[in-house]
């Protein structure tokens, strides 16, 4: 039955296509009316298209027509720089009438970007991008006049990563504005921009950006190769590409970085990485990504090195503890009670009196509830947010303990875990996965299970590579210059060299000559 349905649909489609008269050849002809009919056919059922024909006062044979899409063009440019000059100028004077189109382009139309074009596909796509098409009677060519109007969000500080010290600008959704923001940071001709169009229906503009004499060998080629293999119909955010070019497809770990800040992207380019701008997305991708970058913040480089090293150590500790604390707690209270000092053990077990559920189950449930609260607080409109606070603190915290559904230590552990995982918002996804995995093996096999699980996680991390660079590079080094910018941030006067592998093309960051 369904088969028939589909068949019928197909048949109907065919019929419809047959009924419409297709202009025989899709190319411009000399007759203006035929050309207008052609574009009317191309943009049929599209009522945003505006076709305006007019004529020069003096030169009667100068029959013109402009075609554009309402809302996509700057009407001021269309009125004052295209229609007005062509209407008002005396075209019979000082103009060779046998090459009128060229002459109009050269002497009449006031615009910075005018091209003569005859390819119908290119014309159509420029109209869609917001250019104005100028047709002249008697010519099988047309002028494409740049008149794009892109309404963009103002440049604001990104909500996803705030800083106390440092530039407050963030990328917005316009590709060109983003590129200029980057260009304003790195004012060298070595900064290269390579454009490409991706997404078969969205035709999204994508820009690969790198510094020519710093970019790591092989990464650029690898990135282009991976982008070439993408055959998707739509790219609405850089997240699509991020997932499609990932190194470890089944892993929760990201191997492609994303940032919303021009200073961060500039710094990464200056270390030899490659950036990928996607039109319509304020998040710029950078490759290769090292695991340690997740624990770094741009502010580390702007404030005192002792303070920023301290902050980095805090981030590391919280990242580890947000995956490990629930499992460690579970193994201590259920498998290795002997390790707890007796008074502590007594108070822990006293608080578990009368609680019907095993500790592992209540930990799982409470962590799940915390994630529910987190997700709800993220999606909920601002004014309702207060309700979550009340529900979270009173109902799920205090009342649950008083009702003896969970023990108080479990609530405390959940709270610590939650806060520490929120400190590292960038990789909260992997944290949740790893934490659940560790909790599961711990509840089966105690501390040994936890340790085995931890070994598995580390093995997995060590096996990942991001664009040929080991994901965990410079994690185990402290001595050479790779270690200067890993767990701690060395003072700027010490960091004279770029990171070893990524910046290998030109290691010198600061000239040491006096």
């Amino acid at each position: 039955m369904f088969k028939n349905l589909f068949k019928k649909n197909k048949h109907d489609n065919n019929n419809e296509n047959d009924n419409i008269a297709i202009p025989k050849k899709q190319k411009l002809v000399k007759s203006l009316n035929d050309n207008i009919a052609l574009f009317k056919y191309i943009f049929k059922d599209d009522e945003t298209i505006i076709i305006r024909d007019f004529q020069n006062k003096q030169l009667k044979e100068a029959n013109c027509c402009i075609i554009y899409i309402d809302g996509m063009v700057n009407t001021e440019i269309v009125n004052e720089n295209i229609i007005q000059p062509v209407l008002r100028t005396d075209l019979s004077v000082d103009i060779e009438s046998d090459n009128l189109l060229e002459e109009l382009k050269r002497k009449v139309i006031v615009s910075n970007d005018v091209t003569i074009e005859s390819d119908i596909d290119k014309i159509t796509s420029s109209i869609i991008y917001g250019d104005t098409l100028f047709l002249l009677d008697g010519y099988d060519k047309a002028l494409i006049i740049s008149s794009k109007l892109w309404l963009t969000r103002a440049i604001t500080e990104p909500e996803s990563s705030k800083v106390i010290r440092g530039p407050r600008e963030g990328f917005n959704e316009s590709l060109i504005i983003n590129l200029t923001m980057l260009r304003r940071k790195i004012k060298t001709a070595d900064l290269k921009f390579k454009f490409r169009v991706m997404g078969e229906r969205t035709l999204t503009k994508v820009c690969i950006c790198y510094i020519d004499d710093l970019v790591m060998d092989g990464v650029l080629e690898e990135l282009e190769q991976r982008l070439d293999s993408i055959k998707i119909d739509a790219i609405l955010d850089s997240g699509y590409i991020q997932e499609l070019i990932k190194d470890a497809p089944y892993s929760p770990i990201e191997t492609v970085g994303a940032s919303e800040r021009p200073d961060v992207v500039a710094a990464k380019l200056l270390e030899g990485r490659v950036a990928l701008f996607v039109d319509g997305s304020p998040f710029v991708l950078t490759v290769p990504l090292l695991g340690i970058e997740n624990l770094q913040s741009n502010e580390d480089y702007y404030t005192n090195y002792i303070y920023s090293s301290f902050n980095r150590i805090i981030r590391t500790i919280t990242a580890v503890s947000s995956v490990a604390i629930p499992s460690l707690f579970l193994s201590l209270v259920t498998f290795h009670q002997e390790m707890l000092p007796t008074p502590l053990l007594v108070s822990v077990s006293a608080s578990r009196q009368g609680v019907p559920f095993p500790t592992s189950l209540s930990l799982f449930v409470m962590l799940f509830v915390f994630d529910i609260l987190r997700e709800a607080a993220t999606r909920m409109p601002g004014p309702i947010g207060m309700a979550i606070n009340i529900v979270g603190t009173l109902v799920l915290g205090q009342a649950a303990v008083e009702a003896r559904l969970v023990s108080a230590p479990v609530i405390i552990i959940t709270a610590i875990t939650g806060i520490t995982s929120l400190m590292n918002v960038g990789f909260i996804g992997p944290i949740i996965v790893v934490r659940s995995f560790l909790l599961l093996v711990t509840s089966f096999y105690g501390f040994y299970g936890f340790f085995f699980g931890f070994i598995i996680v580390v093995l997995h991390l060590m096996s990942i590579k991001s664009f040929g660079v080991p994901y965990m590079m410079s994690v185990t080094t402290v001595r050479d210059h790779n270690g200067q910018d890993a767990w701690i941030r060395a003072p700027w006067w010490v960091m004279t060299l770029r990171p070893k592998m990524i910046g290998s093309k030109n290691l010198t960051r600061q000239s040491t000559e006096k």
Partner: protein
Amino acid sequence: MQKEQISDKEAIFLYASFLLGSTALVGIGGDAKNDAWLAGIIGVIMSIPMLLIYSRLSNLYPGRDLFDILDEILGKILGKIVSIIYTLFSFHLGALVIHNFAQFINTAAMPETPIIISMFFLGLVCIYAVRLGIESLSKTIGLFFPLLLIMIFIVQLLTIPNLHFENLKPFLANGLKPVFKGAFTAFAFPFTETVVLLGVFSSLKTKKSAYKISFFGLLIGAIVIISLSTRNTLVLGGLAGSLYFPAHVAVSMISVGDFIQRIEVTVAITLVFNVFVKSSVCLLVACRGIKKIFNLVEYRSVVIQTGLLMIFLSYIVYDNIMLMTYWAFKVYPYYAFPMEVIFPVIVWIVAEIKVRKANKLKPVEV
């Protein structure tokens, strides 16, 4: 596929971790009783020539593993037979190590958990590690091993109040014979077990690395092992020789300010990690041997099967813990002697002769 490489630092840690293996738990020189430290030192000195031979082999054939070397030196058929012996040796060793660990867990930590569960947990982690390859494994060691060393050091410091130096006396009470017996045990288990590591030394970065790694690896491993077993003697006295897991008991006596107490889980962590390293390396070498014997393209295709078989072998290999200690100290040194000493020496002599010949021939050819 890219050739896997391990840096010298990681290889040193791998070496030391392999040495520590299950030895850190079982202790060394059981026969020597309170002279175990002397037995350990003699064992190290005895094993140095063998380690030099292993390093020389790896130096002569850089980028080749044990089985390639055997093939090269002993010829197709004989080489294959010896390869089979080494594969079985490595496979069996891995199973023994897994059994050691599981027996420990069963005795010391979780008496009610079936022993096969412990074996499965360790075995599955090993299978995962071996499937990922030597590179990820050695990087993981590079991250964990320094931390473990620090932890061992701290635990050693914490035991200072419990050390009783009179336990060292009487010195050589039963004469030198038990000391040499203990030294021979230590020589076979663990120091010359490193012959298995020849199977992964094909991934070293430079030709010279093997000597450096053997030296520093032996240094770290020997210092830790000897200091651990000396500590056991100092803390437990005559009891050390009669316990199955002396390290565990020695550490459980630590109590600092009534807060840091019963920290034997730290011993367990060191043990778990080193045991994991040792059994993974054994599994890896066994798989590489199988690959070489059957001319497979990738050793990864047999990892899961071999690993599961290894888990099962470890389950049936001993009936009880008494048998395990008896085997480890009484039988094992003689069982392992051909693989650890006789074959390597023969291979080394043949290799030297071949190399000399090739060197002599070279000028004529040129």
